[in-house]
């Protein structure tokens, strides 16, 4: 799960990581009021995407009047960055903060490294802050210092010193950075974060270390034990159909093609998308209904699938193990009737009770093509989608 910068900074403060003075606002009047308290401010659009600066989502205002004007333009507008796609994202909130004198920009991050060598949190620091860390890693990897952390023990000061001196800090800076890293590490462990980044971490003219930006991703599997974090989810940031699907407990991801698909199992769902492309079509979505889907769940998943107006034909691919094919067939028949489905539907069933499932579909009187093989099903659905256009 992703959260906004302003939410990340509140969590930083909870863990004693310093951030610039400021507050979040959703109206120009609120922005003006914050600017009256602070003076010269930076106004930052709060969306779940990087590249906000280049996209015009970070602006400086020298007076409260100017802050009001900038906020009026920014709030409610669509911000387009290299990560949002061409349609952009609506700015519903802005973060208004004091402008600081920057002496140096650094990078700090902690990520759960899944490579077999690590399989644990890894702390990273770099003297090259303010640019994308992937770029630093590709061009000047020697400027990144890494140290493996171990959540069984606690954070050790030497790990912080290794990073801090590696980033070229002096004695005072290293002391502060070590303390800050310890706090950041506690945030990761305490809240099941899968990634935390401070980029840049700045050193001010006065020698203070401050998190000028903040990004935190959480492990979805850890959310059950952090209700406070779960509350930070911003539904506005999610694709409406994906949000509906997640409420229903199925995995759905919207794509750009016109061949809809419904599959049981994540791996098979991905492989089915690939097969549609191999047959010359483009998948409209990823949809995994899971291993134990009920008829009712299948019907609901189906309604999400067909609310995507790009979908011209649908492929259902089920390998029944625990999920019995006759149950799937009943779900499909109910869905097609109740939703008054007019789109061509190709079904491939394999596994437990496959003959019963096929018979149900064939006898339903509905416009359902029952394919004998998966390959045949993919070719058929692609040609049906093409002829519907």
């Amino acid at each position, binding site marked *: 799960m992703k959260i906004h910068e302003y939410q990340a900074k509140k969590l930083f403060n909870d863990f004693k990581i310093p951030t610039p003075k400021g507050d979040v606002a959703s109206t120009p009047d609120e922005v003006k009021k914050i600017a009256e308290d602070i003076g010269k401010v930076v106004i930052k659009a709060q969306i779940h995407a990087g590249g906000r600066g280049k996209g015009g989502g970070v602006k400086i205002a020298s007076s409260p009047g100017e802050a009001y004007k900038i906020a009026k333009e920014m709030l409610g507008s669509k911000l387009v960055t290299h*990560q949002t796609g061409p349609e952009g994202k609506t700015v519903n909130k802005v973060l208004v903060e004091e402008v600081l004198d920057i002496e140096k920009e650094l990078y700090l991050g902690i990520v*759960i490294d*899944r*490579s*077999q060598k690590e*399989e*644990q*949190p890894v702390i990273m620091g770099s003297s090259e802050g303010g640019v994308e860390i*992937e770029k630093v890693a590709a061009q000047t990897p020697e400027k990144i210092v890494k140290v493996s952390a*171990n*959540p*069984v023990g606690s954070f050790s000061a030497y790990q912080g010193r290794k990073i801090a001196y590696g980033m070229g800090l002096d004695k005072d800076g290293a002391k502060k950075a070590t303390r800050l890293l310890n706090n950041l590490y506690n945030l*990761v*462990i305490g809240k*099941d974060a*899968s990634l935390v980044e401070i980029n840049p971490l700045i050193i001010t003219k006065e020698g203070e270390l401050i998190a000028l930006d903040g990004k935190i991703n959480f*492990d*979805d*599997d*850890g959310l*059950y*034990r952090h209700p406070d974090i779960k509350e930070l989810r911003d539904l506005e940031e999610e694709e409406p159909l994906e949000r509906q699907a997640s409420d229903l407990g199925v*995995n759905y*991801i919207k*794509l750009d093609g016109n061949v809809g698909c419904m*599959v*049981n*199992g*994540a*791996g*098979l*769902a*991905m*492989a*089915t*998308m*690939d*097969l*549609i*492309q*191999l047959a010359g079509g*483009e*998948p409209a979505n*990823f949809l*995994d209904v899971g*291993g134990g889907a009920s008829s009712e769940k299948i019907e609901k998943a189906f309604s999400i699938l067909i609310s995507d107006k790009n979908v011209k034909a649908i492929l259902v691919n089920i*390998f*029944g*193990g*625990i999920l019995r094919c006759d149950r799937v067939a009943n779900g499909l028949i109910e869905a097609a009737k109740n939703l008054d489905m007019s789109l061509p539907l190709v079904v491939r069933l*394999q*596994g*437990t009770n496959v003959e019963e499932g096929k018979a149900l579909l064939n006898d339903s009187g509905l416009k359902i093509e029952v394919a004998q*093989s*998966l*390959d045949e099903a993919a070719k058929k659905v692609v040609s049906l989608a093409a002829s519907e256009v």
Partner: protein
Amino acid sequence: MSILLNEDSKIVIQGITGGEGSFHTREAIKFGTNVVAGVTPGKGGQDLDGIPVYNRVIDAVEKEGANASGIYVPAAFAPDAILESIEAGIELIVCLTEGVPALEMVKVKKALKGSNAHLIGPNCPGLTTPEVGKIGFMPSFIHKKGGVGVISRSGTLTYEAIWQLTELGIGQSTSIGIGGDPIVGSTFVDLLKLFKDDPDTELIVIIGEIGGTAEEEAAKIIKGMDKKAVGFIAGRTAPPGKRMGHAGAIISGGKGTAAEKIKVWKDAGITVVDNLTEIGVNVQKVLKKG
């Protein structure tokens, strides 16, 4: 022959009295699996169809000689169940549970390093050795005994591959779903090493997907093996930055794409299948070439 699950395996099911646990225990017994005990804390002294239930894994080890475990408990209790199995000296631990936090798995992996246990999963379909037994969800009818070892990060996609083999008359030594999480117990690398030393595994089918570096790590092992491998990677059409069902199936920072993985596998000499429906026939071809 087989790896991990064999004629000597005596299985204890942790969470045997729950809905999932009892259903799959009965399925496994029908398949011929030697389930010797169950564990549900607080229900010690009861039984499931005559299988004794204990409060602790150690009791199942001492009284019934259990040396393998299957774990069907909710995510919040699964790490504890794994640690209990490790501590009791269980050699094969299969955790089917979905939704275990990654940081819990970090702890579990530290505990595994100091033990002789092999953990499969979590968030996996389990493993099957045909004509011996199964721990997990794999449908019983898909298997046939033979010489192909199957390893995969997926569930139903694995069934698909196994079924293609069986339909062509090609049997399997052991089939294993390692799980779709970022950090899993046994990795491709760990299991490839076991298949490499198994005299009855002639060829390996390996099924990967987008995200992480497990496929790249596997390639290094396969390159040095004298056994042939046929591979498939799911997610060529997956968009970056989206979690494709499995917690681990995500292209992040432009890394972990199917294209990268396919290239690495081809360079390692793996026969990479483009069309999911042609895994079986490709295995047949490679076996004929010898």
